């Protein structure tokens, strides 16, 4: 009793590649701030230490950015649905602990724990959607659970990552900086999840306008739960890669990730209200902030000042966002 409304007929307006590129550039323009920052930092670093412009140099520069980029993509997914995760720092730490203890000694238990973490994240997503509890308080509370678990498993830093993980960490191809491969990989994964896949589209729709998603007949709960679960997987990857680099476990090894990932997403053109996900921008943001850490140690800034520098940079980034918004309006 229904009539065919759409017959495949006349569509001739194939979008040309040039137009696609132009549109992508315009839509990605919020990420330009991070690209500019990245180039500036890189230039300063090169001026300071010309040795960076070599494959080993770039490897060193980029190494610290690898786990951060994965964690940033996770934060980006959660911010795309309009939430914020304040537990990422300790969770990455916990994963390094699991990697350095259980994953070697009792692999099954270790893997079980990691899967359990994904389940807990899904549960958090469920509670946020169904019970309306603010995600920042729940994830803040959970961050102490992660910290506690980490301390229980490994009270002092130590342990040893399994061989295969250490091998990943020490992979050094001669033709390309190894970490760059991981950075690109993380970006592609984030891009696929948030921008290319259908679930990513729904996640952005949830953050952009939940009533519209509901009118389209899609489940809000399922979307939020999946977003949280996918984010957990990315956080776990971040933790494993950090353990691969340090070859040991320390629950406090990534505490600064919580703020840094949020700052990286914002620097990369994301927003706090949800709906937007720019994986490339987020990666630029994360690499920039990672470079800054390296740069600060290059210029022999006292380690005491590093966190202040980070805090100030975050505030400067957010101030930059306010200013650029004024300009573009």
């Amino acid at each position, binding site marked *: *009793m*229904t*009539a*065919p*409304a*759409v017959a*495949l*007929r*006349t*569509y*001739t*307006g194939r*979008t040309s590649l040039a*137009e*696609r590129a132009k*549109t992508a550039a*315009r*839509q990605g323009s919020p990420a330009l701030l991070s690209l500019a920052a990245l180039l500036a930092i890189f230039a300063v670093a090169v001026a300071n230490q010309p040795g960076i412009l070599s494959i080993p140099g770039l490897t060193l520069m980029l190494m610290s950015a690898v786990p951060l980029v994965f964690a940033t993509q996770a934060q980006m997914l959660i911010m795309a649905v309009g939430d914020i995760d304040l537990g990422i720092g300790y969770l990455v730490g916990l994963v390094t602990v699991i990697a350095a203890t259980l994953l070697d000694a009792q692999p099954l238990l270790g893997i079980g724990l990691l899967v359990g973490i994904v389940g807990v994240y899904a549960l958090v997503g469920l509670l946020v959607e169904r019970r309306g509890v603010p995600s920042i308080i729940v994830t803040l509370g959970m961050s102490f659970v992660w910290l506690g678990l980490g301390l229980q498993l490994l009270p002092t830093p130590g342990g040893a990552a399994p061989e295969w993980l250490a091998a990943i960490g020490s992979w050094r191809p001669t033709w390309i900086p190894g970490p760059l491969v991981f950075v690109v990989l993380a970006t592609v994964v984030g891009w696929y999840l948030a921008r*290319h896949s*259908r679930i990513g*589209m*729904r996640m*952005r*729709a949830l*953050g*952009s*306008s939940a*009533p*519209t*998603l509901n*009118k*389209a*007949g*899609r489940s809000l709960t399922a979307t939020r739960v999946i977003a949280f679960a996918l984010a957990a997987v990315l956080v776990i990857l971040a933790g494993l890669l950090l353990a691969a680099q340090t070859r040991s476990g320390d629950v406090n090894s990534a505490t600064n990730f919580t703020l840094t990932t949020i700052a990286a997403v914002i620097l990369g053109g994301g927003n706090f209200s949800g*709906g*937007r996900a720019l994986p490339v921008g987020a990666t630029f943001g994360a690499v920039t902030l990672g470079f800054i850490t390296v740069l600060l140690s290059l210029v022999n800034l006292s380690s005491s000042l590093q966190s202040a520098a980070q805090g100030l940079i975050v505030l400067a980034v957010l101030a930059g966002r306010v200013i650029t918004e004024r300009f573009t309006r």
Partner: protein
Amino acid sequence: MSSIAMDRGVNDATSRRGPDVIVASGVTKRYGSTTALNGVDLAVSRGEILGLVGHNGAGKSTLMRMFAGRELPDEGRVSWHGGDGRWDARAAAAAGVRMVYQELALCADLTVAENGALSDPRPSRAGWRGTAERRIGEVLDRVFPGHGISVIQRVGELPMAERQMVEIARVLCTDRLGLLILDEPTESLGVDATRQLYVHLKTLVAEGVSVLLISHRIQEVLQHCDRIAVMKDGAVVDIVGADRATESALLEAMGGEVRADVGTLARAKVLADAAPQTGATAEIIAELRTGDGPALRVGAGEIVGLAGLAGQGQEDVLARLWQGGRGARVPKRRAYVPGDRQTSGILPLWCVAENLTISALGGVSKLGFLDLRAKRALAARWIQALRVRGEASTPITALSGGNQQKVLIARAFASDARLVLLDDPFRGVDVATKSELYALMKAEAAAGRAIVWYSTENREMAHCERVYVFRSGRIVSELSGATNTEERIIADSFDHATGGSR
């Protein structure tokens, strides 16, 4: 009141009609104490365009949502092809009911193609993105040839007219279209696109699709619909064949003015006499420039009404008067009575007295410390004056909507504001309460306050000395005295520019 050759019209219209596709019978819907729909009977038949007109609060949108399965009736039922299953969103989706929302069901952060795919029921395998781009691109090409919209643009980047086109195209992204519901689809469309839309609707109808069209552009409804249903006060008061109807007859059926008839003039005169002296000579205490239209002026001791269809810029005027700033000259002390009691009115955890006095705390405190006795007395005076049901210590949420509204009005008038802004505060308030509050407003104005009152209920505007009618963000007329009638307001609310038959 209006029976525009009704029998003949209906008969003629029915004779050509196909079988009924969807039928609402005896549908009633209540929200709290207000009845949005009151025993509505309406059928849409196969292959027709049914127009639905009516003024604010006539129940059009509620009826639409009911047809779309997004709202379940309290009484009566909606049936699809005579079936008796439950008519909810799932059933409606399966039957191919698609709706263009007035507020647009689009995600600003998603691209045009993604928005199409979001609500597209058809499955698509790998490469869904390409499929989605092709699908909505084809629909756009077919409905709006030469539209100039790139399907990979984000909706948030598009101007309003193009968003409206995307919303229409989004809805047409389906292979099962049974009933198409359009809620003000041409509100922001240009002339060409509007014409293209109606051309396409004609082809859809020829393919057997049924269309339900809500529009306040009476001329369009007259030109393109087969039948027109007129709604008023939650009921369908008239159904006429479009070939038989005229704009004036429809306006009259909705409760609007046709010509300045004698009865209206007489009634208006009574109102004009009853109203206090106009504020023409009073000191102008607030002034606001509105775009290219005339400026809005409010004098001390004056009640000024903002009328017209909902969402034509009245809220914007209130917001600018409230915030002050550029183009607005406002007194320092102002008060605001919000219309949405639940989200921007009551302070839900507090009792009546605290809710009532929060804006007036400056008057009952010394150096920031409250004089509790004075605060209690202030609350008590107002509770008594307005006969608020319940004590000062009753939780605000325990009160009925009308009594909550009394408290909010009292909050504004208990402060020392010179300019009081009312944002359609009497929706869902019972008649007795309303008349008490009208009396209060008049007394307060007589005492020298200036009141700006936005209302979607045109009848209320009779209590104003002057009324500004808004359309598309502009003041289109200023009514006072004898011209300030409900009928004139309704007539001025609708756009005659596209018509010209008057």
